């Protein structure tokens, strides 16, 4: 039995891709065994601990301009540190499935705030519950200072409800549009009055500003509190469907198969919103391994970068460059464009982002040079000559070190170019690159070319 194709696909979706030697080792496993191993490796939950200071507490009235500037600088430093710590984690951890799902929840509970300690705390809540229970996750996320601040629940008070949190809770976190009314928003906002956080970043309930009156929510009238509202929402099957649909887009296909999503929603709902059984169901479903579901998802910029980092054991001396890549590609971790997160799919791709995506791998791996044999063209020759001349500058600026020796050592002797191409690219191999690949003598050139293709953008 050789499950090369299935195992590779599973790792492309449930993780950030597989290394050559691991695939060589796992390709005889059954899908079930591989799934089990993925969960096993993700049992450990290690929080990110890059930030330990709440910089907001440094502000005082009448501070010197200089002091304020320093605080702002430190704030920027914290943000970079948190961002790159997570990128590094995703690129090196064995708990790949946990990080992959944390990335999903990071986008699902999109939050964009200036306080890195709070952002880290929210990220850790998402990591802790990434494979756990969705209800616990929603409740804990709702109580993080990050979300309370981002969706203005600090200002949600009796007599002056601020509806921002209640609206996004239903529209984006649980039910999706069309499954609640404007009145449900108005009423439930009152139930969350008094949910706040204190100076220490701890959730606190402020009974004095909580609205104790009766609220009518989804047809029932009582003095509901926030927890009641979340219970009521999750009791609705629409919630299981909404999350299943979004997860399907993340793990399976942009184009929804209503039947598959319905199966997923049933599993999710019947398990009381346990995430693990839902994922197991997806990864062991026959349809997950159908050709149309292989190599047809557009990697997010972070998946693209992390995938490279894992595959080529890249270390970055200058973390700023990781931030620049994320910006250029349109996905800066912890800075989603709005409350709905990154739209994903084809939205990642437009003229400039696609060109960056195809160029960045060679910048990291080979100081920007993509060797090309068509040297009869003077324009091309001039371009390649100029690129070679620039290589030292690129190296100085990027300061990234791939471990080519290790990468090459992973590839068993006598592996054909064709096999390397089939391994590096997810789309079912029938493309011109593979034909042309067989004519290249140097593996490094071949690999650089492969990671610089549109095919490499897919997983």
């Amino acid at each position: 039995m050789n499950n090369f194709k299935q195992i590779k696909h599973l790792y492309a979706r449930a993780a950030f891709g597989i290394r050559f030697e691991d695939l060589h080792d796992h390709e005889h496993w059954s899908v079930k065994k591989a799934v089990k191993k993925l969960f096993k490796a993700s049992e450990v939950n290690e929080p990110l601990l890059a930030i330990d200071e709440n910089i907001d507490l440094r502000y005082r009235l009448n501070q010197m301009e200089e002091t304020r500037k320093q605080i702002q600088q430190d704030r920027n430093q914290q943000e970079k540190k948190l961002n790159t710590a997570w990128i590094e984690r995703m690129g090196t951890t064995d708990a790949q499935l946990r990080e992959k799902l944390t990335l999903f929840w990071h986008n699902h509970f999109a939050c964009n705030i200036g306080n890195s300690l709070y952002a880290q705390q929210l990220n850790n809540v998402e990591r802790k519950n990434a494979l756990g229970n969705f209800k616990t996750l929603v409740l804990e996320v709702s109580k993080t200072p990050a979300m309370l601040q981002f969706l203005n629940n600090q200002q949600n008070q009796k007599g002056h409800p601020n509806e921002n949190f209640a609206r996004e809770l239903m529209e984006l976190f649980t039910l999706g549009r069309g499954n609640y009314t404007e009145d449900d928003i108005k009423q439930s906002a009152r139930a969350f009055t008094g949910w706040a956080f204190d100076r220490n970043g701890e959730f606190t309930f402020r009974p004095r500003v909580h609205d104790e009156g009766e609220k009518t929510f989804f047809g029932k009238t009582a003095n509901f509190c926030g927890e009641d509202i979340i219970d009521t929402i999750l009791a609705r099957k629409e919630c299981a469907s909404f999350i299943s649909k979004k997860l399907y887009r993340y793990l399976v296909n942009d184009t929804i198969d209503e039947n598959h999503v319905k199966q997923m929603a049933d599993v999710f709902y019947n398990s009381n919103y346990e995430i693990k059984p839902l994922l197991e169901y997806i990864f062991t479903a026959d349809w997950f391994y159908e050709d149309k579901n292989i190599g047809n998802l557009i990697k997010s910029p972070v998946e693209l970068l992390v995938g490279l980092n894992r595959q080529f054991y890249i270390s970055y001396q200058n973390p700023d460059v990781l931030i620049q890549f994320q910006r250029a590609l349109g996905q800066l971790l912890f800075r989603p464009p709005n409350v709905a997160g990154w739209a994903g799919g084809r939205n990642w791709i437009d003229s400039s982002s696609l060109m960056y995506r195809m160029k960045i791998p060679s910048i990291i791996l080979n100081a920007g040079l993509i060797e090309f044999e068509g040297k009869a063209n003077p324009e091309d020759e001039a371009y390649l000559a100029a690129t070679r001349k620039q290589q030292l500058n690129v190296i100085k600026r990027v300061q990234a070190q791939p471990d080519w020796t290790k990468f090459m050592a992973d590839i068993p002797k006598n592996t054909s170019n064709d096999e390397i191409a089939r391994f590096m690219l997810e789309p079912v191999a029938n493309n011109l690159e593979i034909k042309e690949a067989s004519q290249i003598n140097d593996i490094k050139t071949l690999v650089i070319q492969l990671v610089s293709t549109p095919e490499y953008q897919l997983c």
Partner: protein
Amino acid sequence: MKRRDFLRNTALVSGAYLIPAFLKPFEALAMNDLTGFKNLVIIQLSGGNDGLNTVIPYGNDVYYQKRKTIAVNPTDLIKLDDMQGLNPNLAALKELYDQGWMSIINSVGYPNPDRSHFRSMDIWQTGSEANQFLSTGWIGRYLDSNCQTCKNPYTAIEVDDTLSLAMKGLTKKGIAVQDPNKLFQTTREPFFKDMVHAHQDHLNEDNLGYLYKTMIETYSSADYIQKTAKTYQVKADYPATGLGNQLKTVSKFINSGLQTRVYYVSLSGFDTHTGQQAQQGRQLKIYADAVAAFIKDLKQTDKLDDTLVMTFSEFGRRVEQNASNGTDHGTANNVLIYGGKLKKAGIYNPAPDLVNLNQGDLQYQVDFRDVYATVLDKWLDVNNSQILNKQFAGLDFV
């Protein structure tokens, strides 16, 4: 090297393959042919700009009753007539207004308004009904309409890193260009050029086909935009802000004679649930200073008569402020129009009615698609029903 490659690469030397055949006639157009080539510039204010604190109905007491702590005092604002005035941070716009280059359309919205940022922004960008979900943008459908000049991706340029839904049609889409030179340089990569050429005939509807299609379009556009844009240097001064830089790039494109009809830029930061005065004030100042520089620049270069600028936001905000010195999501809002040839400059229609509200929100008087219809019919020369899926009467501002 294979013989096939050699032949192909020899053909490349001429650069001919970079320009699909259908582009040729346009390339051949001389600059003179371009006079009368009309441009539309769309400025999107993201987050839901509070229109009532932008163009302020200071002549209406209700405004002061409902906005106890965030109202702008009559003495601070820039009076336009005895009812409405501009937020003081918009001081730079006063000159444009006095010159007759600015028109304010009040109470623009749509039936059954949606108060979600994303949904309402989608409605504005797609030109849909509130209960209709469209996956193409109104400018994208204009590109799809096959009008004489909209065959190329660079017919609609978004000066940004990513492309908005408004710019995406079913078969055609605009192009996102933050820096034309950077984009062009990446397309010179020999390996990429080879792939572009090799895959012209292998385009499927799946994501891989989509990637190749995008790549091929990028090639034909990047070359043209770069070569055209570099022929002109902007002489006017622009504020050193994101929007200032974007509009400066638009000026460069327009003045170099780029065959682009629609430009799209955006400014965010208008979701002012708390501490609105300072935050909105900052954003409005960035907006006004950049727009004033742009309009005056175009006046200098004689392009203002051929340019129409439209500013919108996904919704206005609730008439009554909230308890945190901010405002919550609302409905109808003003749309600001600029141009050298406005038919009706100044305040286009009566100030918003602050009394007859719906759930505390303004009721729209002008459908935003009537604004689009006007632009489509009278400025972009296509029948609006073709783009908006039904006929709109339009307005009379151009």
